[in-house]
């Protein structure tokens, strides 16, 4: 299998991962499509350097989350997206979800967290171990535990305020 086909298979297998990162770091459909494409582009660019030095998922989370930080809106300047033609509609339909109340509430809570907390909570919800969270985020394992319990407190007080 050539490199491109290998990459396509990896992305297809992990569409959900990219989707979840995109949902946490954007607020509009257009931003989601922009970020989704930027992440796939950055993954492709670093596919060679990945070379199985770390776990595939660790590499993917790292590239996706780091790209999300760098794609934070710095101004209202609009950058055109690559047209994905007819398929865009299908892409948009799925991105337009979730409509469920609980999921909406979950996103609302996460949107209130700062960038560091957002990264940690995403990996926590994805069921990553403290060690893996520490590796992706770049802090110590014990610090991960401290941060998670702080986020818990923050979420609790968030609910109390409501």
């Amino acid at each position, binding site marked *: 299998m050539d490199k*491109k086909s290998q*990459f*396509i298979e990896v*992305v*297809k297998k992990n*569409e*959900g991962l990219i*989707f*979840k990162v995109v949902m946490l770091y954007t607020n509009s459909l257009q931003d989601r499509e*922009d970020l989704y*494409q*930027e992440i*796939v*582009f*950055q993954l*492709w*660019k*670093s596919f060679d*350097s*990945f070379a199985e030095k770390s776990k595939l998922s660790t590499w993917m989370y*790292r*590239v996706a*989350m*780091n*790209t999300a*930080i*760098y794609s*934070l809106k*710095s*101004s*209202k300047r609009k*950058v*055109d997206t*690559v047209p*994905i033609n007819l*398929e865009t509609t*299908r*892409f948009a339909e*799925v991105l337009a979800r979730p409509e469920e109340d*609980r999921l909406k509430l*979950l996103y609302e*809570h996460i949107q209130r967290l*700062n*960038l*560091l*907390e957002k*990264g940690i909570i995403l990996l*926590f*919800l*994805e*069921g990553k171990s403290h060690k893996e969270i520490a590796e*992706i*985020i*770049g*802090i110590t394992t014990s610090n991960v535990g401290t*941060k*998670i319990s702080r986020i*818990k407190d923050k*979420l*609790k007080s968030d609910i109390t305020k409501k």
Partner: protein
Amino acid sequence: MELEEMKNTWEEMSKRLENQEILTNQIIEKMTKEKYNSKFNKLQFYEIIGAVICYGSALFLIVSFQKLDEWYLMVFGVIALLSLLVLPVLALKKIGNMKKLDIASNSYKDVLIKFQKSRNDLLFTQKIIFYISLVLAVIILPVTSKIFKNKDLFEAENISNMWIYIPVLLIFLFFLSHWVFKGYRSATNAAENALKDLDN
């Protein structure tokens, strides 16, 4: 919503997503090829166009420099020339620095720190560019007036034009600067809050 409840909701969504197939092979292939999609490449493209315009204007100014026959017009001409040469270098340098970041091998924390630093640098460069543009905007009128119309705006019969031009220009630049810096601040603040948390 408690953290455990959040986790259950998240797992339900993850299960649902496993069955979704949004991307086709063709879409993924397009995403890897269309390099101009990258925001920085796009910005760089606009900056290069700006640089060509600046250097073209600088060349024109050099060719027409002998028309500036008064000492103050010559001084303005030199300042305009230097501004036109420096502006594109500053603009392209700032984007080049942002593109250098290795997204794949840096940790999330490192990217947050570098993002914050590059935003600050960008804001600083943007301010310098803005002030140079301000100077350029003020001095370019007498220079071009002399080159194109052979009219010295500082001569008694023309000076009234300058009194209209300068206040209008200053008002315009005030609103422009407000618009330019506002966007940068919001993104910088988002990273700043997260960085404060890193130290705790």
